[in-house]
């Protein structure tokens, strides 16, 4: 044991400085990928996906494609300026993307730029897990049907009755045999119902109890279940729902959160953009879907997906290959390899909005604000909505009951940092000191939401 420790110490004494050098080198020279990820999430995900072309090109492997890291930085900072210098690669990219220029990010510091570049150049798909394309089922697996447990219960009860009947039969035969042996008259073999009748007459109290037990354990739960079936939780999606938590209604379009948020790692807030500014998270409007689905009309190896995506096109009245065409430098219409004119896609009529079914139904008398919780409180979506990236259809994760809200307000400390800059939030600074002073007798002062009145009625009800 001692030998082992010593060896370890020796190895580490050699390895650590080396690792340290490598580590520090990378930080100083190339920025911090983790910080870059945050910046990327906040600023880039609306147009860029790592693996797929979206509004902008897929970024995986950009380190190899682009002329230099410096070029990437210049492009991010202000691609218009870069193109204006006549630089060839940038102009080629610009042309390839039909003259769509990227917004400038002049506000980024050198460090921030380093961080982002570090993140995008070192990014690699996660080796295993839900993001593995091959593992993502094309057709969602059906959830097990409910109701089998009732059959089981009936089966057990039936078996028990059978055993009782058999054993009582044996018992009677034995008793009859004993009576014959003793010279008494054997009892007549009674039918099953006659036996029950005799038992009932003889043991009124016992029989009464048995009947009551049957009623209590048999009819009442059955009745209760039947009551449940009359539709207290009826309607779309409620039929498969034991409790409100996992309410997952069927939607007009079989939208797969596991594919979008899990496999493709699209940030929640890209589609649910209201989260940052509004009380509502907002179900994305069809134009947000079309940002990507203008190009993506089918998932690889999953022809069923085309049917679902077509529903978006139907809603927005979008038609492929019937719109305007491009003209090349000579004034000729641009043709494809087969020599056909390439027409762009277009919206042919006004379209109708998609009628989604609301999953999270908060009562009218509760005021809830997403931006308060996400921007100010700094909560992650999944803290309330659960592992959405694993859900095939959106379902309610949290019960959204008052007790659940209150409990979180009791336990959660106030996030005193600003979401994007990480600086201390000036709103809380003075308040925190005041409260700390007032609660100085508490050994461990925890500045929770409760402390500033997070449990008060008028915080949510007005």
């Amino acid at each position, binding site marked *: 044991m001692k030998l082992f420790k010593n060896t370890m110490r020796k190895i580490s004494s050699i390895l650590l400085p080396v690792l340290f050098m490598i580590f520090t080198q990378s930080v100083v020279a190339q920025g911090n990928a983790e910080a870059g990820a945050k910046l990327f999430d906040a600023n880039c995900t609306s147009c860029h996906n790592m693996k797929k072309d979206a509004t902008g090109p897929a970024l995986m492997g950009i380190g190899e494609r682009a002329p230099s890291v410096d070029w990437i930085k210049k492009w991010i900072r202000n691609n218009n300026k870069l193109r204006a210098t006549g630089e060839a690669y940038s102009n080629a990219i610009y042309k390839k993307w039909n003259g769509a220029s990227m917004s400038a990010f002049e506000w980024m510091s050198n460090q921030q730029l380093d961080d982002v570049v570090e993140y995008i150049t070192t990014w690699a798909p996660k080796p295993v897990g839900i993001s593995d394309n091959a593992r993502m089922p094309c057709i969602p697996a059906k959830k097990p049907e409910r109701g089998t447990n009732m059959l089981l219960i009936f089966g057990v009860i039936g078996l028990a009755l059978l055993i009782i009947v058999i054993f009582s039969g044996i018992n009677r035969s034995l008793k009859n045999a004993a009576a014959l042996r003793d010279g008494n008259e054997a009892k007549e073999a009674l039918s099953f119902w006659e036996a029950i009748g005799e038992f009932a007459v003889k043991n009124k109290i016992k029989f009464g109890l048995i009947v009551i037990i049957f009623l209590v354990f048999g009819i009442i739960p059955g009745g209760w279940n039947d009551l449940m079936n*009359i*539709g*207290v*939780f*009826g*309607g*779309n*999606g*409620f039929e498969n729902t034991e409790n409100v938590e996992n309410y997952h*209604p069927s939607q007009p379009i079989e939208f797969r959160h596991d594919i979008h948020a899990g496999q493709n790692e699209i940030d929640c807030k890209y589609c649910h*953009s*209201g989260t940052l*500014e*509004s*009380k*509502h998270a*907002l179900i*994305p*409007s*069809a*134009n*947000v879907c079309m940002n990507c689905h203008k190009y993506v009309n089918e998932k690889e190896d999953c022809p069923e997906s085309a049917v679902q995506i077509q529903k978006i096109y139907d809603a*927005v009245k979008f038609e492929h290959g019937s719109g305007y065409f491009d003209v090349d430098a000579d004034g000729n219409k641009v043709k494809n390899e087969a020599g056909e004119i390439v027409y762009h896609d277009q919206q042919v009529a*006004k*379209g*109708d*909005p*998609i*009628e*989604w*079914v*609301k999953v999270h*139904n908060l*009562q009218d*008398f509760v*005021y809830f*604000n997403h*931006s*308060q919780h996400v*921007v*100010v409180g700094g909560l992650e979506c999944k803290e309330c909505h659960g592992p959405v990236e694993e859900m095939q259809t959106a379902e309610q994760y949290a019960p959204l009951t008052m007790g659940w809200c209150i409990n979180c307000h009791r336990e959660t400390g106030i996030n005193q940092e*600003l979401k994007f800059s990480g*600086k*201390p*939030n*000036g*709103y*809380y600074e*003075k*308040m925190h000191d*005041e409260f700390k002073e*007032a609660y100085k007798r508490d050994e461990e002062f925890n500045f929770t939401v409760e402390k*500033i*009145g997070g449990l*008060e*009625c*008028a*915080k949510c*009800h*007005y």
Partner: protein
Amino acid sequence: MADTKKYWKGIEELEQAPEFVESSKKEFSEYVPVDEFVGNASEDSSPTNRRDFLKVLGFSVTAATLAACEAPVTKSIPFLNKPEDLTPGVANYYSSTFFDGLDLASIRIKTREGRPILIEGNHNAPTSKGAVNARVNSSVLSLYDSKRSKGPAKKIGESWAKNLNWGIVDKEVAQNLRSAASNGGKVVLLSNTIISPASKGAVDYFGAFIGAQGGSFEHVTYDAISASGILDANQKTFGRRVLPTYNFEKAKTIVSFSADFLNTWLNALTYTKDYSSNRKPDGDWMSKHFQFETTLSLSGSAADIRGALKPSEIAEAVKYIYGKVGGDTTGKVSNKLKLKLDKAAESLLATKGESLVIAGSNNGGIQILVNAINDKLNNYGSTIDLDKEVYTRKGSDVAFSKLAKEMSAGEVSALIIVGLNPSYVAPSSLSFDEALSKVGTVVYTGDRLDETGDKADYFAPSSHYLESWDVLNPTKGEYAFVQPVINPLFRTRQWQESLLKWSGNENTFEVFVKSTAKSFLGTEASWINAVHDGYFLSNAFDSVPASVSDTTSEIEDSSSEPVSIISSAISSAVITNAVSQASVTPSGKFELELYVKTGLGNGDQSFNPWLHELPDPISKMTYDNYIAMNPVDVLELFDLEDTKATRRDFLYIGQESPAKVLTVTVGESTVTLPVVAQPGQALGTIGIAVGYGKKGTEVFTRQEWLGDLFDAENSEKNTIGKNVFPLQSQDLWVSNTISSGVTVAVLEGARYPMATTQTHHTMMGRKLVNETVLSTFLEQQGAAKEKGGYNETVLIADSYGDEKTTRQLDLWEEHAIDLGHRWGLSIDLNLCIGCGACVTACHLENNVAVVGKDEVRRSREMHWLRVDRYYSSHVTTDDKDVLVDDLSDLNTLTEYADAEVADSGDDLSVVYQPLMCQHCNHAPCETVCPVAATTHSDEGLNQMTYNRCVGTRYCANNCPYKVRRFNWFQYDDLNIPAFPDFAKVNHQQDDLGRMVLNPDVVVRSRGVMEKCSMCVQRIQAGKLEAKIDGIPVQDGAIQTACSSSCPTDGIKFGDLNNREHAVSDKKNDDRAYLLMEEIGTQPNIYYQTKVRNV
């Protein structure tokens, strides 16, 4: 995101059978035919026997219960293509301007999900300076009036073909106009004041078109509340038919003769803002305000010294003042009035060049005299700015009566009426209706088929101003913009666009406005900026000259050339002429004044239930107009002795005490109205409000509400109140005062139920108002709260005889109010003019239900905020000889009814006190709630949790301030109104009216208690904004509905714990006091003592 799934309980509901619809409107079935199935004799013969009935009943109850169990599936429908600047859940604000010929206000409109839901003042704009009144902020509900016309119409024979296509109406109107013009006929456009260069451009374009066709065109302007007298006087004395800018903020002495400049006189909102800036005793100086008037007005109640006089005495009083300030006239005034007039003259002379004299009369003679007084006082160039011309009134009474004559003579072939309802507002002497019938083609562009609309041939409904484009030029060099905040709800079209269309111009009016505005704005960017700001100031641009009608020639003019610079150029000839024009010889026992009421104004918004339910600031009456008469006169008219008992028993109007009814006859017009004993009304005069009795308002009312005035045969006459515009007299000017030929008779035995709130929620005669005079205030600075001071701290002796403050004697456990925020209000009684803008703003913001006249009578109005009005007769002991007659001491009153039908005379002063939940730190309501539905927040709010409330009403019973309101009925139910009559007045029961509801505030249901929440939704939103920005809440960043709507800034909101917030200083102010401090409730609302400058 509404649920689209349909739920129904039976076929009849699904199919909307008429019987079902009828019965669904009733909470309780009127008649249950019990005998039919219970009576033994009839059991066999009855169509339904008892057992069948029970079976069906049992089944349907079960079915209904089960059906009701199903959880609804809620749809959530996003935009197809979300507009970039519209995020559901986030409010957008737009600047616009309100102008209806009476009020002018720069406003900011809050929209949610594309629906305008709130109107507040635009505090950056020079026009009206952010002030709004009840009429302006309630106008958003007028937009959602489902009784507005849905489309154009034309008359066929006697009936209307409604909801036509614009094409049909356009074609026929254009045809008629063209043929009228080509036959050389006269086409007239009759409008109220147009201050828009773009609209003027459209009118000119139209005029040119008519001219080109061979016809003649005239544009006649007339205002319902006419200021023709002032305009004509200015024309005569200065050569310009415009209004000057009155600088109330510079005036140290203000003398007003019947001009209600804080409510309805000219640009009242701007004046209110300016006036209030110098009504603070802690400033450098405080203005001194004299008001001489007939009917107690808002301005009169704000005045330091008020004198009551008959309309005929105004000319005398003005002459008297003119004589006092150096003129050569003398007036015959009573000795009592003389004392006050002398004081006024003395004050005017002492502040020469910094004083202001104004008159509300529409008599040019009086106005010339007033101009002469101001000239003598050197006020021109200081408090009155003639160079900064104001165009908000341009109407000409002379032109209007000339038009009526021409119409009667059949000289007008086509008449287009815009922004005016002449059949409703014209004096009866003009016989306008008869004249209208002689006109070839009449086109009306109002918002519904009203009095004038009914008599028109074509109806081209104009859009609401919130659906319209325009650019206004209210003052020289000042522009205000009107922009639409919602698409037209119905098939309406701006009248300007209609004019353009009929003259062959296919442009929309938006294009027209833009090109007009760009002529002085220049670039597209400045146009966008100007529309964004809502205003534009231009010194370079020479504004559109005021439309000067050539009608002044009819005014006898013998004076010198018009002068542009003021001097003593007002010659004695002009004065003599003016004196003769101004003088009236009264005859008869009573003189009549027709005044403009705070709620309905000129009657344009007669269909707005918020304005009907807003208690009149003075009389606290809702829903009706009435005859205001001095209590002494009333008792005399009914031959009763003037004793305390008769006053209390006879004059009191309450739920079970309806008003008596009088008939007033002026010439050939007669009007029958209830009489209200109004303290402060000049003896020998009666006052009646205009703006009532509009056609169509009968839907708001019902038989029981009209008492003995119900007309069973002529249902159209059962309007709310009666129209008294026809009683106006007309010679050169239309006059709202009638001094001769007024007879008043008692309609024996007739009674009329009135809905008054004046005795509701009264605080049983406790001392609530703190008042002092300026000299005392200045003397006691810093010592006001000591013993003997005007704001003495309440001390109570404990059992040892030691005097302690209520806070020291407190038994309660303290809330942690010193930690974090502590929200509070500071209300300055000195600045409150009682206008009621806060009451309606609270309605808008908090989805307060409208309950109807009958429920108001039962004290069930839902106002979260009320403005209490207290009369008092003692102002100061020093001036006893002047101000106190033979009045009994109000401090010795034992019963509140005494206070309400107070002593008479015409000398009294008024204090207004806005009262909302006081958010007591030691709230009596909280301790008695059995379900803890009302609790205290650490931020100083008294919270009301509706979904926890079970409606015991213990809290309301225990509230010393009586600010809690119980929701008696299902005011919010769209489908099954609990009580059919609510649906008529309550916007919450109307599909369209519900669009005005604030989505951030819950709509309360039946059986819960509600009250002021200190706009907690705004506090929460403001805190969130601060948190996102990462800064502490700034002073003024959060405003309650009442504080942001207060035109005098009398209500301030802020954090009492934050030293940087103004309210935290205000609470320690000399004048600050708590309401009923002695009971130890420790409110978070601080009042500032009223100080009078006498």
